[in-house]
């Protein structure tokens, strides 16, 4: 029994760290540090999956943990850095909402998610905690998408949302069936590649990747 408690303490710590990494993204104006923070977040996520795999002893979850590590903590950040280098984008992020209000909004979103999840009936305390963290990631990811000007940050926002869902799925139900989980990984990877292609196209045609330029189709 004590082992489980220890495991759940560690889980709580890691989940808290995941939230911290999200705030690193919210609080930074430099593209590289955002990507780095995303890498850290994915790494932490992989360790959550690792712990779940260890405590349940199911091999599929090990596979999922490994895939998270490879795809989300290594390949996707690499794709980001490749894009940033190739299109020589300005390293600073332009914001619609400044850093300090962003951080406050992030905090508010976490509180709201916490109360929202309280209202539904979840089996264990830990699952409920993880689910509220997952809701926070989803809402903060969404906020990042709408408050940052660069197209590349919208891509990062989507990935943060996806990470949030992954956290929810792994802590709530020990992950979806392997086939579904593999499909999701596949879609995320292809999605990132295609968004990358689109960003290159945007850069080529508009000579920058600010989403301000994408406002002609109305009505």
């Amino acid at each position, binding site marked *: 029994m004590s082992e489980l408690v220890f495991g759940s303490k560690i889980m709580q710590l890691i989940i808290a760290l995941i939230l911290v990494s999200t705030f690193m993204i919210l609080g930074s104006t430099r593209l590289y540090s955002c990507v780095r923070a995303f890498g850290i977040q994915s790494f932490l996520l992989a360790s959550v999956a690792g712990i779940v795999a260890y405590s349940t002893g199911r091999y599929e979850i090990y596979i999922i943990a490994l895939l998270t590590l490879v795809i989300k903590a290594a390949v996707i950040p690499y794709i980001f850095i490749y894009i940033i280098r190739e299109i020589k984008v300005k390293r600073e992020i332009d914001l619609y909402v400044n850093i300090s209000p962003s951080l406050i909004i992030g905090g508010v979103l976490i509180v709201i998610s916490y109360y929202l999840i309280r209202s*539904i*009936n979840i*089996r264990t305390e830990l699952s409920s905690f993880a689910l509220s963290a997952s809701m926070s990631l*989803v809402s903060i990811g*969404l906020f990042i*998408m709408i408050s940052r000007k660069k*197209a590349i940050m*919208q891509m990062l926002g*989507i990935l943060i*949302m*996806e990470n949030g*869902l992954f956290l*929810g*799925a792994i802590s*709530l*139900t*020990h992950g*979806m*069936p*392997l*086939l*579904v989980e593999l*499909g*999701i990984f*596949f*879609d995320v990877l*292809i*999605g990132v590649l*295609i*968004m990358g*292609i*689109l960003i290159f*196209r*945007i850069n*080529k*045609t*508009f000579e920058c990747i600010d*989403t301000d*330029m*994408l*406002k*002609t*189709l109305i*009505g």
Partner: protein
Amino acid sequence: MIEYLLLAPVITGILCLFTKTRKQVEVVSLTGSIITLLLGLILVVQVYRYDIIISWQNALFADAFSAFIVLIVSIVGFVASIYSTGYMGHELEHRIIDLRKLRIYYALFHVFMFTMLLVGVTNNLGLWIAIEMTTLVSALLMILYSRKSSIEAAWKYMIICTVGITFALFGTILTYYASVNILGETGEALNWTSLLAVADQFDPAIMRLAFIFILIGYGTKAGLAPMHTWLPDAHSEAPTPVSALLSGVLLNCAMYGIIRFNTIASRSTGTEFSSNLLIVFGLLSIGIAVPFILLQEDYKRLLAYSSVEHMGIVALGIGFGGIFGVFGAILHMFNHAMTKSFMFFGAGNVLLKHKTKEIDKVSGTLKSMPFTGPMLIIGGLAITGSPPFSIFISEFTILAAGFSRGYIVSSVLFLLFIIIIFAGFFYHISRMVLGVPKPEIKTGEVSRWMLGAMAVLIVFMFVLGVYIPPYFYEMLMKVVNVVR
């Protein structure tokens, strides 16, 4: 059986990449889509006979509703590939695209077909994966022309739909959680067949939350207001045959996801909760389309907003429920697919000839385009729900369901909206077909292929308007039984 149906478009797509000339790529694509159509029809017949087909270790399955989606995908896909031969051929001749792009176009076209077929035949909530794949492939099709506007449209489409789909994934996870509590953690816990059997034991609080997320998520993809903002951009900027697929088929695929979940959720929460949500979103979609259709200046966007309206009508029909409501909604999915593709094809003919999407700059097509002009009038009548065309039947059924089940206010609003839309739509169509043709436009049609594609669709629009064949009727009733 199902595997072959899925393999056919993939193989065709790959073969398209290895062709050398325009002739070759067209032959490969046409042959491929005929094979896909035949396999689709065989699947429909088999499902008609055995009710449910399962294959590939339970991962793929087809019941009447799946078969129905497969039917829509393969018919419209087949017709769109005929149309593509004329349309993309014309683009090639005028050096708007080169042979390399033509190959990529056909390859993506068939992969797109594959993803949509996959939506129909996936035996679990992993349906999500297939729907996300449709977004990815169609975004690539949209940037085939490297115009500023199409890149903008593709980016918006990609971002908004991916976010929407992420919400749907959250709903899926919640549903899985609800089902795991009953079935235990097996791969089976996500399968339709096993879900349906135990859906009434699911925790209603969780299912309510799940259904909201699903409705918002797949609703984004289905173009329900207020999440429809990407739709007019995407559907008007894509190459015309793709617009037809997006409007006619892809929206139905997303709707399919919503309807499946509605079936599961309503077993646990009672029908009232999901019905009310569907009615609200449905009415909102129809209502929002009204001003945009009245004041529209771009004819492809006009058709796109009309798709928002029609998806609203389908949602409304499902929301009204009962045999008639669901029957009307399902029939409407089919009729809308046929009629809207037909309209997009007509718009494509006009676009190739006039090189503009502005309604103001097109006039007198009745004289300058002896086939397309009359077809636009027929299509305009059909899409706005006038008799004797098929959409009239399905809209009338839904309306009857609404009145008979006591949703008086919603039904009256619905009736009011479609009357205004009829007037607005017809005003725009008449501006395009009547009057004197622009002097620089020569009389004549662009390509016979394109006319052939439209001729196939008009059969469906006419026949289903006056008579529903008994086999088709029985199939629809099977779908209704699966869905209710």
